[in-house]
């Protein structure tokens, strides 16, 4: 056995109650240059610059701008497209169709999931339909849409609705089901039932899942639209961004093809970072609901 250790008996002391002062230490100002390099946005731009330089180098080494125009050539074509208004017009045409399809798809998805959480046949319908249609690429329905609705915006809207509806319905529904039981009971305690219950409790409580569903649905819709426009687009007169890419490839304006692709990417990036990030900051991140 080891020797028993006895701690010394110390005097007690009591301090006067302290006022709740600033518990946080003042943030130390570090070197500005260091801090700028740590910013995620700056790091991303730097990475993009490196990739653009690589691209330009490969293009120059390869030396055939029919096959691979360089970064500067693409940038020039892009700037010219913007200046002449052609590219902007095509973007506007695409976004107009997209907005229609997206709006219809979102409304249909919310309606379908609301019915699904309120009624049993609705739930069975939703589960069966999402299981069937979610794996089906929306673009595969384009031939059928063209047969039924002709060569026009209606066919494009049809495939976009399909691209939006199922993934959004799926994530909204799983968001609804993940709403805590206590919160549901609190809502029912106030006498909320039916659509009022969905609108006041389920919809806001499932917002994180709905927002990520909206994001996925937007990406699906955008790529489906561009793909569909590659098939046709002249019928509407001006045509959208996909048609712009297709046309310029036929005429071997490869730099314009690249400019069109750049526009597709930039718009996707802008929507994700401007619209969805702002929405998230104003809602689920403010409420600390992101998981």
């Amino acid at each position, binding site marked *: 056995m080891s020797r028993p250790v006895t701690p010394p008996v110390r005097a007690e002391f009591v301090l006067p109650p302290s006022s709740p002062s600033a518990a946080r230490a003042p943030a130390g100002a570090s070197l500005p240059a260091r801090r700028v390099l740590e910013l995620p946005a700056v790091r991303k731009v730097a990475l993009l610059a490196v990739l653009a330089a690589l691209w330009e180098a490969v293009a120059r080494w390869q030396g055939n701008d029919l096959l691979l125009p360089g970064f500067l050539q693409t940038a020039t074509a892009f700037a010219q497209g913007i200046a002449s208004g052609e590219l902007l017009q095509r973007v506007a045409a695409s976004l107009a169709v997209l907005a229609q399809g997206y709006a219809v798809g979102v409304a249909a998805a919310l309606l379908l999931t609301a019915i699904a959480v309120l009624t049993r046949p609705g739930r069975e319908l939703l589960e069966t339909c999402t299981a069937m249609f979610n794996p089906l690429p929306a673009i595969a329905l384009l031939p059928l849409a063209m047969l039924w609705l002709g060569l026009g915006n209606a066919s494009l809207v049809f495939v976009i609705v399909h691209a939006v509806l199922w993934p959004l319905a799926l994530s909204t529904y799983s968001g609804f089901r993940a709403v*805590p039981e206590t919160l549901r*009971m609190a809502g029912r*305690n*106030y*006498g909320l039932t039916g659509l009022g219950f969905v609108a006041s409790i389920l919809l806001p*409580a499932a917002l994180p899942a709905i927002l990520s569903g909206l994001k996925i649905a937007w990406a699906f819709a955008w790529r489906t639209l561009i793909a569909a426009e590659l098939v046709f687009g002249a019928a509407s007169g001006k045509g959208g961004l996909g048609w712009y890419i297709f046309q310029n490839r036929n005429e071997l304006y490869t730099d314009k093809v690249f400019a069109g692709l750049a526009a597709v990417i930039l718009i996707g990036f802008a929507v994700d970072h401007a619209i969805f990030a702002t929405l998230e900051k104003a*809602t689920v991140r403010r*409420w600390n*609901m992101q998981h």
Partner: protein
Amino acid sequence: MIPRLVRAAEPQPLLRAENVTLEYGGRASTVRATEDVSFDVYEGDRFVLLGASGCGKSSLLRAAGGFLAPASGRFTLDGATIGKPGPDRLMVFQEFDQLPPWKTVLQNVMFPLLKARGLPRKEATERARHWIARIGLERFEDAFPHQLSGGMKQRVAIARALAMQSRVLLMDEPFAALDALTRRRMQEELVSLWQEECFTLLFVTHSIEEALLVGSRILLLSPHPGRVRAELNSHQYGFAGIGSTEFRAAERRIAELLFDLPPEAQDSTGRAGRIAL
């Protein structure tokens, strides 16, 4: 049974459980949560349902709230059978997620006033502000739930329920998820709120001490399935007498009843009453 003298002026019970049997499960297997439970809650009561896990106390509260239909028997409020949830029986839960995270403290308290009571916005705001001040959170009106501590969240839930001035408040172990120091303060605050407002409370707990402190009358339930074991008075015990001999004796008596210990179980330290359920 205590023989009851029927007189014209005798107060009528507000909330009544009449031979309530509650069951869970489907066709294959049913679990009986409570069997033939009856009790009367009078206006101004702080009525506590006390028992170990499995005695069906939370299920009884849920049934009183209208969230669970009895397999037999019924709950009545002012003589009318309770069928579905309603704002005349507001619940306060143990879980912190009972507060919608997308609403500020003020909006949370206003929510039922607008939705269930249909008050105009201005009146709802005033009333909500009043109750938030009563629970001492006026500086946090515009805070979101995630910015509050657990005790503050429970205070908001209590203010939200009190602001509705419903016929009876149903509380399902509202302080069980709090730390011991906060829990004691919340118990004291609840009782002092009751002294000022005199609402009717149906309170579920598994802590003998909490039952004696918060309750004015205690229904003891034995588990598997939940049956009534005793109904005791506890209005005489206050926070001042927590360590007193009478308080300890009351704790011990309840523990003996709940665990079917022989009366005055030979426990020299007198710790029987402190057994955690």
